[in-house]
């Protein structure tokens, strides 16, 4: 069977499964729509959380980032897993005990202020919209590459599927679909990794392959990679990092940001008990780690495979003739993600670091005119992995379905966070408190449909700053939502003034730092510094790493403002007491 038919078959089968779940898990009440009736088993919720969390970026882009950054890529690995420890120990059980439906609702109630709730709604919607644009883009791109339809058709198909199960089923439909999507994406990610690890290191466990020996030469894989890439002028794979301070803050910002992402937090509202929320966070991390501990192996091995494909006998011999490249090279050239330019017209592909001085000398001797692999998109590392390793068509088809599952599952979680903050917080909480449950449920569905429309629009017409949004989403979550939630639980003294000013100060400094390097609201030409490169960063701290500083500012401002003003009223202090003990959580679910 040819690849295209196979891909249609596999992707079609997974979509049929999601639609089936959509009709089976329809939501009948706001409790089911917002929190799946709080009846999800902790292990099942862990699996759904893993799918909710692992986006197109985790599935498609992360291994490629690590492949090119080497050791430093660990900031994504630690940052995007370590946040779960913060979530489990500091937030999830308490927010579950609180027993309401949304993150702004907790902030509004705990800080007895609609203003606080409103600031939280603005943060939540900004974070979630920026995040969902990337997912929609991922859906469109996966469709266009693997199924050879245009991006718009792919995007509309994806929107249609999400519409069915998210609008009909709300959190309930999304949860069961995410469980199915997790199974699809983890299978799709690990099968190629197992094959490649077998080929290179002889062990089927990629985690062991990473630290194992390169079979052909009997030396450690890492040594082989270092040899292969340094002789082409590239940085050593496990070499030291530019700035330990920047890497530490970057990792910390991703961790705090992860723990403050509303679409992840609300998943813990779906389990029956406080103790389940604790277990469930652990299970979520187990399921996430299945991908996250494989990703560094995929990255390292892909880096080696790609380099040895082009230089089969090392830099001392000639590189591959363009006429002799494997099929995957031609396939990915067509997508524009890979580009060869024969600068010295010798028909061979000279791929090396032409910015390295040592290589300039060698290039002069050998008659090279610069690096000829002029474009090499990092996403190829995962998407073309099975082809590079020569795996059968069904594995390639599975990777397409896995990428779609990762993007759709995260999009659905984000859309639910957006729609519930509109229908539950803005409409029911602030604007029209007297609407009935039926009206609220209808409003939630309309908000969901609207959010899908907005996400689809931006997916088709991505704003110029699409690539910068990760810094923005994590920076905002780290500097606003996480500190507000944590102080709301662990301090009885933080009052509404402290919380509101703390959030505004935290977001303020974080946005100021990001905009100073990337332009005001990402508009070109409005940046204060000439470029976002290490020599201009204050103390070498990148804008992506600034969320942790923003969080610190939030904590400090909230503390001093609260101390200078009156303590929260007695009933708020009692509320904090009550969320600190698990007993009585069942009673709170009735809402």
């Amino acid at each position: 069977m040819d690849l295209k038919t196979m891909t249609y078959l596999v992707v079609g089968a997974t979509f049929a499964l999601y639609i089936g779940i959509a009709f089976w898990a329809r939501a009948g009440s706001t409790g089911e729509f917002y929190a799946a009736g709080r009846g999800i088993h902790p292990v099942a919720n862990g699996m759904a959380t893993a799918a909710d969390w692992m986006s197109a970026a985790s599935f498609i882009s992360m291994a490629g980032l690590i492949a090119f950054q080497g050791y430093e890529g660990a900031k994504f690995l630690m940052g995007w897993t370590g946040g779960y420890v913060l979530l489990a120990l500091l937030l999830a059980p308490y927010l579950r005990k609180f027993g309401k439906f949304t993150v702004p609702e907790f902030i509004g109630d705990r800080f007895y202020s609609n203003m606080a709730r409103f600031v939280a709604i603005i943060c939540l919607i900004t974070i979630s919209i920026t995040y969902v644009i990337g997912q929609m883009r991922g859906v469109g791109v996966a469709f266009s590459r693997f199924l050879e339809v245009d991006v718009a058709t792919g995007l509309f198909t994806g929107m249609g599927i999400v519409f069915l199960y998210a609008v009909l089923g709300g959190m309930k439909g999304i949860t069961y679909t995410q469980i199915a999507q997790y199974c699809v994406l983890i299978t799709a990610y690990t099968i190629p990794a197992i094959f490649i690890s077998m080929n290179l290191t002889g062990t089927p466990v990629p985690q062991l392959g990473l630290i194992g020996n390169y079979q052909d030469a009997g030396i450690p894989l890492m040594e082989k990679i270092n040899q292969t890439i340094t002789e082409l002028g590239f940085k050593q794979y496990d070499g030291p990092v530019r700035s330990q301070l920047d890497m530490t803050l970057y990792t910390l910002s991703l961790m705090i940001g992860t723990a403050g992402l509303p679409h992840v937090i609300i998943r813990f509202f779906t389990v029956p008990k406080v103790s389940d929320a604790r277990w469930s966070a652990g299970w979520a991390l187990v399921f996430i780690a299945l991908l996250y501990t494989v990703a560094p192996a995929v990255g390292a091995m892909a880096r080696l495979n790609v380099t040895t494909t082009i230089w089969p006998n090392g830099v001392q011999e000639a590189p591959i003739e363009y006429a002799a490249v494997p099929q995957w090279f031609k396939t990915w050239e067509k997508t524009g993600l890979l580009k060869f330019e024969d600068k010295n017209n010798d028909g061979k592909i000279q791929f090396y670091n032409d910015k390295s001085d040592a290589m300039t000398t060698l290039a002069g001797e050998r008659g090279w005119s610069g690096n000829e692999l002029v474009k090499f998109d990092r996403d190829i590392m995962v998407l073309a992995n099975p082809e590079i390793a020569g795996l059968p068509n069904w594995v390639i088809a599975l990777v397409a379905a896995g990428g779609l599952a990762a993007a759709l599952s995260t999009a659905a979680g984000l859309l639910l966070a957006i729609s519930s903050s509109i229908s539950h917080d803005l409409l029911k909480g602030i604007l029209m408190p007297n609407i009935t449950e039926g009206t609220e449920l209808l409003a939630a569905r309309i908000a969901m449909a609207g959010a899908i429309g907005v996400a689809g629009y931006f997916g088709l017409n991505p704003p110029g700053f699409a690539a910068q949004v990760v810094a923005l989403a994590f920076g905002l979550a780290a500097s606003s939502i996480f500190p507000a939630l944590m102080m709301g639980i662990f301090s009885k003294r933080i009052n509404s003034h402290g919380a509101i000013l703390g959030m505004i100060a935290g977001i303020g400094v974080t946005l100021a730092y990001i905009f100073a390097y990337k332009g005001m609201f990402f508009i070109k030409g409005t940046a204060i510094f000439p470029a976002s490169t290490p020599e201009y960063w204050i103390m070498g701290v990148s804008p992506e790493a600034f969320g942790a500083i923003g969080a610190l500012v939030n904590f400090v401002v909230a503390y001093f403002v609260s101390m200078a003003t009156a303590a929260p009223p007695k009933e708020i202090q009692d509320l904090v007491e009550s969320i600190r003990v698990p007993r009585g959580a069942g009673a709170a679910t009735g809402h």
Partner: protein
Amino acid sequence: MENESGRNYWAANIRLVTVLLLIWAFVSYGMGILLRPALEGIKVGGVDLGFWMAQQGSIYVFIVLIFVYAVMMNGLDRQYNVEEE
């Protein structure tokens, strides 16, 4: 909660969380980043310990930390008689 048992429960909780977060920071920021140059000589298979902690080990420790927390907290809930009915 405004009694001695309630205060002790909360104090035990804070102690547990503090210890676990110290370990959390030590394995990631400590061994994975800041102490990596000092650990250069120690090998895990073909890579150095700092590299392995940053790309593999810290994630395994994170999982263990959450499960230890769940077990110990559920134990504290019972000990102080505040678990869910």
